[in-house]
């Protein structure tokens, strides 16, 4: 009975297609059509500009706390872009560019981050779940959705998003394990942005990569340069094909960086250095993609200016519409409407009591 090595599948790929300067590795070029490349570029710029605008609105007290996405546009948009309309996207809360890509309105984002449940309404035809806040718990929902699709023999996939911090949560591991055991068509997209509020990636896990956790669950895993939209897209497309073919789930670790604060209630200067932030600014996903597109000759300076101008117009329009909607403060009594499908008697009584109280204190219009 000797002591010997067990033969395990022990390798994890790292995929990078566009380098920091936007130079393409032609052997890995996923060959996306020009129109799609331009669309992706516009969506990244929209995500970035919308973030900037929301930060201003937040600082002016016009919306509440929100989690900026700046720096992570490629890492989530590149993955969501491979989904079909009838696939499911299960977001966390820092995938705004991907949600807008899927058809979420900017008005809805603004309302959600200003405390209006209406902002979590998912538009008809968009097969997404609303944002999920309990960290990591939504990953299991994607597994359940994928399971349901497999049961119905549909060739659809469910894609879940979560951060590096979430990979320390039991629910995420339970999700990997379930998905592996039942070979469901799920894609797990980790936004490894290096920081879970103030806890650095190195203190989150002793593992060299997050992607390698896939090995332990017997599922496919890959690490990609999350600031390289072509790499993220290519890895996600491969995962989607695997899932649709019935060959099980994939974990994709997108190595990226949260250039801004965790949420607007956070000040990252308290726990990380300016040098670190600057080193990641050089790896900016939009900058390198723009260089690539210019090099490829499908956009020029005028085109870039046009995209920026049109994006800003769209954002302004959305802010105007959302603020108009939010000015009509909904009746607080509305809070009773969706606790249950049908309001039970004790809630009716509490609703009545609150209405009465508001009447007496003159708050009722």
């Amino acid at each position: 009975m000797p002591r010997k090595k067990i033969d395990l599948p022990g390798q994890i790929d790292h995929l990078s297609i566009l380098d920091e300067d936007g130079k393409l590795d032609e052997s890995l070029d996923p060959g996306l059509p020009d129109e799609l490349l331009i669309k992706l570029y516009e969506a990244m710029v929209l995500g970035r500009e919308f973030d900037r605008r929301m930060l201003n609105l937040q600082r002016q007290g016009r919306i509440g706390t929100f989690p900026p996405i700046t720096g992570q546009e490629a890492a989530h948009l590149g993955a969501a872009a491979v989904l079909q309309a009838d696939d499911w996207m299960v977001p966390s809360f820092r995938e705004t560019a991907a949600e807008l890509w899927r058809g979420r309105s900017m008005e809805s984002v603004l309302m959600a981050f200003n405390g209006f449940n209406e902002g979590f309404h998912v538009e008809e035809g968009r097969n997404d779940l609303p944002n999920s806040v309990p960290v990591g718990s939504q990953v299991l929902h994607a597994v359940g959705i994928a399971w349901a699709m497999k049961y119905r023999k549909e060739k659809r996939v469910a894609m879940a998003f979560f951060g590096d911090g979430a990979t320390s949560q039991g629910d995420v591991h339970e999700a990997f394990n379930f998905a592996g055991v039942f070979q469901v068509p799920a894609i797990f997209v980790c936004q490894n942005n290096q920081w879970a509020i103030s806890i650095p990636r190195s203190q989150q896990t002793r593992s060299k990569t997050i992607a390698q956790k896939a090995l332990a669950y017997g599922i496919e895993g890959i690490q990609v340069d999350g600031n390289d939209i072509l790499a993220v897209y290519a890895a996600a497309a491969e995962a989607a094909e695997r899932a649709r073919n019935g060959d099980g789930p994939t974990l994709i670790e997108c190595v990226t960086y949260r250039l801004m604060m965790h949420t607007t209630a956070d000040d990252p200067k308290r726990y990380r250095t300016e040098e670190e932030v600057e080193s990641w600014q050089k790896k900016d996903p939009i900058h390198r993609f723009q260089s690539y597109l210019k090099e490829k000759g499908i956009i020029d300076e005028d085109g870039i200016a046009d995209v920026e101008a049109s994006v800003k117009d769209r954002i302004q329009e959305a802010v105007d519409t959302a603020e108009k909607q939010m000015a009509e403060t909904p009746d607080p009594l509305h809070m009773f409407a969706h606790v249950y499908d049908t309001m039970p008697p004790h809630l009716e009584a509490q609703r009545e009591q609150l209405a009465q109280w508001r009447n007496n204190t003159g708050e009722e219009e």
Partner: protein
Amino acid sequence: MTDDQKELRTLTYRDAIREAIHEAMQKDARVFLMGEDVGRYGGCFAVSKRLLEAFGPERIRDTPLSESGFVGAGIGAALGGMRPIVEIMTVNFSLLAAVQIINNAAVYLYMSGGQFNVPIVIRMATGGGRQLAAQHSRSLEGWYAHIPGIKVVSPATLEDARGMLWTALQDPDPVLIFENAGLYNMEGTLAGDAGAVDIDKAHVQRAGKDITIITYSANLYKSLEAAEILAKQGIDAEVIDLRTLRPLDDQTFLASVAKTHRALIVDEGWRSGSISAEISARIMEGAFYELDLPVERLCSVEAPMPYAKHMEDAVLPQVDKIVALVRKMVGANG
């Protein structure tokens, strides 16, 4: 109706639940059962015995040992158009899935502005009295009944064991079904055509005029037994089975208290911050001037459940304690 359907059959509480699952699976292809050991093993309490043979592993799903995992996946499946029945072995392990139940299933409808509901049914065994010690003997159904957004039901009778599941599956809200493990072997008769029952009304199980005993689940039988003993002593107790702990049907017990003017609550949960406290408060709010004397409560002793049999018996509500309390309340001598 054929004679077959009318005929009473003898079966156990366990059989009644199994029949309910079987029927639901037959009627609706979206229904499936999942949990630990529900397939090959037939369920920790043998509720799902032979269902794997009948429906196959796609619909009777043995899962890895992770409560949050299968409850979370169940929520996802429900959001994705299925009607999952999730079995958690006992309420004690449901604590591992508390985030999924309380922080997800219970608030999904609310947080999505009425758009996404989670039509999941989660069944679990509850209760003590079987010498399983502190970590396996909890009665936390009252604790779950504190949470807005979920429904909490606790079938005591064969009719309810047979009939609540289908109604729960039709309900668009998440429903938790608590099955007291001491009831699984209980045998009784059920009509051949027994089927769905409501999950929003308490039932008067024994009519009486001297005192109202409000209870649910396994303590229903202790209360009924006590009522029979009391009847021989000339005390006529009304016994109410709550059936549903959230939303609570207070109209039924308030009407009863208005008639008897005395109320005793018998609850296996701990006393402080319990469903019994809520019932007591509602009686105070809704029937204060009907009361001849303060509401009394008989609950489990507020200590972790002991392992030793005689100590466990001492912790739980028992027939003799109910009898003694009622006698004291109605002012009976001796």
